[in-house]
């Protein structure tokens, strides 16, 4: 081994430690999902054979299917609507650029600084007055349009060649079709990054659904987890299985799109 290689050992050791600490709690969660409650408490670190049993306990004691359904509907609807609204707005801020639009963008960006805590109570009162407590609409509306996503798409549009738009116009394409058929297909990394961010955020969102979904029949997966924790008797095996089930979709989405995600973030902070 050469001297330079020796000097690199601490770097690899540090990275290995970081990876171990990052993955170990997740490993414990996954392993515990296959063990009995007693084995979880006894900190068994090897996979067991009680996965099906834990699943049976879980579906018998908790409305898992219903929570899964509500979380999926909320997350998918939020992601689709957010991608449509924010991509077209971000595109317009750049392509139809004007000083007035710059000013509007600057004002919208201020919203990033507003803590959700400061808007939560009036939003709850608004939806209560509209009789929309417990509605999917009320859950997703506050998450659809975010200045951050608009900014992401605006920055990505910077590198889009304007000549192409001109050429498309000369060919007689309308403004909407230029956006949808020419611009959007080139924006896959940004769409992926924005989609992952929105999906993860909506899927994992806890406080707002907890506030606005008063009736437990509409509860989402994080609410179900939280209620399991607060219950009198907890079966730790099935609790860890529930945590595992909630975490799997987001990890799959993330792993599948992470290359695009990195590209999207890179594009955004250029």
């Amino acid at each position, binding site marked *: 081994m050469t001297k330079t290689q020796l000097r690199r050992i601490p*770097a690899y050791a540090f*990275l290995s430690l970081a*990876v171990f600490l*990052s993955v170990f*709690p*997740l490993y*414990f969660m996954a392993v*515990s999902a296959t063990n009995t409650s007693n084995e979880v*408490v*006894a900190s068994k670190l090897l996979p067991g054979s009680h996965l099906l049993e834990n699943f049976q306990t879980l579906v018998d004691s908790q409305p898992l299917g219903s929570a899964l359904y509500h979380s999926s509907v909320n997350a998918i609807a939020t992601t689709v609507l957010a991608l449509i*609204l*924010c991509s*077209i*707005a971000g*595109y*317009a801020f750049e*392509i*139809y*650029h*004007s000083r*007035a*639009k710059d000013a509007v963008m600057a004002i*919208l960006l201020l919203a990033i*600084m*507003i*803590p959700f*805590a*400061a*808007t939560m*109570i*009036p939003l*709850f*009162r*608004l939806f209560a007055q509209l009789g929309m407590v417990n509605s999917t609409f009320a859950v997703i*509306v506050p998450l659809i*349009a975010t200045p951050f996503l608009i900014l992401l798409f605006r920055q990505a549009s910077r590198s889009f*060649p*304007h000549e192409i738009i001109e050429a498309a116009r000369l060919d007689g394409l309308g*403004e909407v079709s230029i*956006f949808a058929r020419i611009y959007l297909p080139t924006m896959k990394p940004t769409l992926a990054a924005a989609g992952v961010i929105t999906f*993860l955020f909506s899927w*994992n969102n*806890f406080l707002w659904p907890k*506030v606005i979904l008063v009736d437990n029949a509409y509860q989402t997966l*994080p609410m179900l987890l*939280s209620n399991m*924790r607060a219950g009198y008797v907890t079966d730790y095996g099935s609790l*860890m299985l529930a*945590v595992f089930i*909630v*975490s799997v979709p987001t*990890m799959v*989405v*993330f*792993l599948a799109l*992470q290359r695009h995600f*990195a590209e999207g*973030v*890179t594009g955004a*902070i250029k």
Partner: protein
Amino acid sequence: MSAPTAPTEDRASSAPPPGTKESPGSSKRVPLSAIARRRSLTGWSFIIPAAALIVLVNFWPMIQALFLSLQTGRGTRLTWAEPLWLNYQRLFEDETFRLTLSTTFIYLIIQVPIMLTIAMVLANLLNAPWLRWKGFWRTAIFLPCAVGLVSYALVFRQIFATDGLANDLLIKFGLLDANVNWLGQTGTARMVIILGLLWRWTGYNMIFFLAALQNIDRSTLEAARVDGANGFKTFWYVTMPQLKPIILLCAILSTNGTLQMFDESFNLTNGGPGNTTMTVSHYLYNVSFRNSPNFGYAAAISYAILIIVAILAAIQMKVGDKRD
């Protein structure tokens, strides 16, 4: 709609290189052609749905909360407070508010600097040209960010339970003699929350730093090396100044996030023991939605959070600017 479209510099038709700005005021006001006007209107129609929604769910409630914070009463029966600033006066005498606010600041002051430092070290290692298996390291360290806050809070609660994994391992390796009730004592319970935050968010910040590092102009690093600067000097004097904007962004986002922290406080420790791990947002939730809701007072708390976030952001921007 016509007023804001008047000084349009129609970039689409003149097609300047993207990113450049024409010097303002140099162009004379020429009447817009019908096409340019229509395009500008199209632009606005693309923007308005998202912009209107942002106003509706952010700015409008923020103003509502201000009015609300000047009212008092239980549930939906609210009247103007007497004096108007009654709720804010009450804030200063509220022991629980003071406790939860200082707890939140403890999390902020300890966790954010440690997290940003580790994230910066990791990002620099991942950016080293000689490093192998980059994708593996990056993915594994970023993975905690794909886990929901409630999920990881419950896993940490399990690990740090009195009969949990942390105690078992520490006893096995001879670091502890007996089980520690981690979540039952103020100091250790707060430490567990901080460890949880570090676990969940370090990789997230690392990704931002890594992206910024990859955008750094390699020639500046070469120049430093030619001038004889060593690795650390190059990092401190050449790389760091170029990373300032992204560090500032991460610091502001983390501050903002910590001040709004709710899920961990609610699910990992449920604020206990004796409210000493409760965050100010958790307290706000309790005032708003537990027992008899007091929306007026809760709105005053929310405005206190808003003002603190704004002040801290302003301080950070000021400090960030000075380090030139």
